[in-house]
């Protein structure tokens, strides 16, 4: 099983990557580019379709990340999906080289309604529906959890590195009602998304008692910075970018690609930023 290597750009645009001088190295080093916001609907932008087409033109595969969505995000995502469909119709995008990662069941519904011709993946915010990655293990709850997603056309799941080589229950799949060949994993490193809120520290100011908000305000703080937090009760530093808190696991967490295969990981995604 060949290991595919991907790059998650996060809040960085291709233009910014180019300006930083990193684009050539990225094009050389990675086969797949992860574009679009993974955690926040305020960053959904249809311009990602142009980036996807440009990268496909250079032989790269694409995974479009989509976040948790409210009604507002659903509207924005609908525009992105429709633009992608147009790009497919006009031949600018090859559907076989583009996947969509969903982090909201509403996004799955939207993808189905739009009859997207792309393979869907379950993102890191949906991982708990199928996997338990607490502690030192990654285990599948039960084969029925995989079946639920398989019936939606989803067999790839995205997880974060835990900073260790975790124990897995994949070899005991028969007892849990699944076959390890039924799914594959994408592993992000070096940041693990610990938790997510909807309201950012700076962008969303306090709401007075008489005000009922229309949605989540945004100052786009995540585009330019992350905060490092030294929690009095935690040894590790926490990183806050936008609405999500991360932990960083900088150490190498696998000895060989064979070891990753034993964990059903056939794709590694490097995220330069949390």
């Amino acid at each position, binding site marked *: 099983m060949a290991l595919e290597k991907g790059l998650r750009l996060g809040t960085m645009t291709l233009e910014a990557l180019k300006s930083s001088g990193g684009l050539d190295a990225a094009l050389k080093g990675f086969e797949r580019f992860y574009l679009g916001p993974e955690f926040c609907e305020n960053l959904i932008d249809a311009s990602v379709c142009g980036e996807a087409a440009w990268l496909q033109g250079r032989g790269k595969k694409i995974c479009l990340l989509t976040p948790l969505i409210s009604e507002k995000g659903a509207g924005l995502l609908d525009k992105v999906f429709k633009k992608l469909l147009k790009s497919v119709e006009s031949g600018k995008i090859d559907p076989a080289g583009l996947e969509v990662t969903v982090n909201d069941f509403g996004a799955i519904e939207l993808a189905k309604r739009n009859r997207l011709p792309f393979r869907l993946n379950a993102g890191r915010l949906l991982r708990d529906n199928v996997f*338990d990655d607490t502690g030192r293990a990654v285990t599948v*709850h*039960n084969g029925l959890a995989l079946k639920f997603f398989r019936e939606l056309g989803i067999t790839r799941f995205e997880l974060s590195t835990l900073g260790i080589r975790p124990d897995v229950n994949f070899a005991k799949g028969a007892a849990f009602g699944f076959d390890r060949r039924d799914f594959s994993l994408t592993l992000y490193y070096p940041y693990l998304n610990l*938790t997510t809120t909807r309201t950012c520290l700076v962008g969303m100011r306090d*709401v007075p008692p008489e005000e009922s908000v229309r*949605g989540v305000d945004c100052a786009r703080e995540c585009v330019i910075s992350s905060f490092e937090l030294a929690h009095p009760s935690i040894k590790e530093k926490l990183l806050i970018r936008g609405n999500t808190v991360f932990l960083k696991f900088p150490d190498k967490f696998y000895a060989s690609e064979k070891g990753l295969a034993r964990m059903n990981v056939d794709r590694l995604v490097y995220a330069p930023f949390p």
Partner: protein
Amino acid sequence: MKIVSCFSSLKELAPLAEAGADEFYTAVEGLPAFSVGFLPDRDLAPAIKKAHALGKKIALAVNAIHAPATDKRLAAIEKRIRALDKLGMDAFIISNPYLLALFSGRGKRLRAELHLSSVQPVFNSLGAAFFTRFGVSRLILPNQLSPHEARKILALCGAKGIETEIFDYRFFGCAYINGRCHMHKPDHYTLKSAILEGNLCRINAKPGGLVKLGTLDLPGRAKELPALVNRLENRFTCGGSPRLSNAAAFFDFFISGAHYLKYGTRHDRPEVKVKKVGELRAMLSLAEKLSGSMPKAEARRAFVKELSRWNGGGF
């Protein structure tokens, strides 16, 4: 709007009903449930009888998003739930979709209702439509959703005859999204020392003592430092409801026709539970009285003014 109250002891049922609870829910250790505060498993059957004797419905939370089970264990879970269904449990609150699928569909359907837990948060009408296909009869909305954002969800639920439920913003409200959070326990980080209830969210920090942030280097926003410090502390101490939930948000949900108001802190002491349900009843009565006696905008203003004077209930 009706009140749903948690309970974790048989003795709590009658006082909670007297305080104003219209429905009850609980959880047991033997079945996968979110959070802490369990009714002893042996008391479940008597609880069904007692709730019904009081003229109330009762639901069981089987709402852990992590529901690991071998096929053997899953068969035991299913057998237990179907037995409770026969005993008269009125509803099961579920979050993991595979459990939802296990009890919906032809030949698998329970007699009892299925409620979608807020631990499987639905923030849009597309997600609501997705889950209604699994026979969900009630949607428990996450508390990080504003009434304005929930309009299409409420409309969809109204059209399909699906009930909706919200939490009392005063007694529940983590800033993080339930079912998507790994902050509670040190599964991925290392604690310097033991913390209250082994739970990071309940870190025993005094307000104002946790965040050491001296300046806010944002153009024109330096005065916001105290509010930002407060927000940061709330995020890491379970210190208050998220900023989307407040008195106005409750009133707007109330006027929009949300069906149920929930109090769900199962680990509260019995006397605290009774007092909090009394607070829910008082807030609901106020909303009913004001909305029934004056125009909507005026009632909303009066309601918010009154709730702004609420002293926290001394909890």
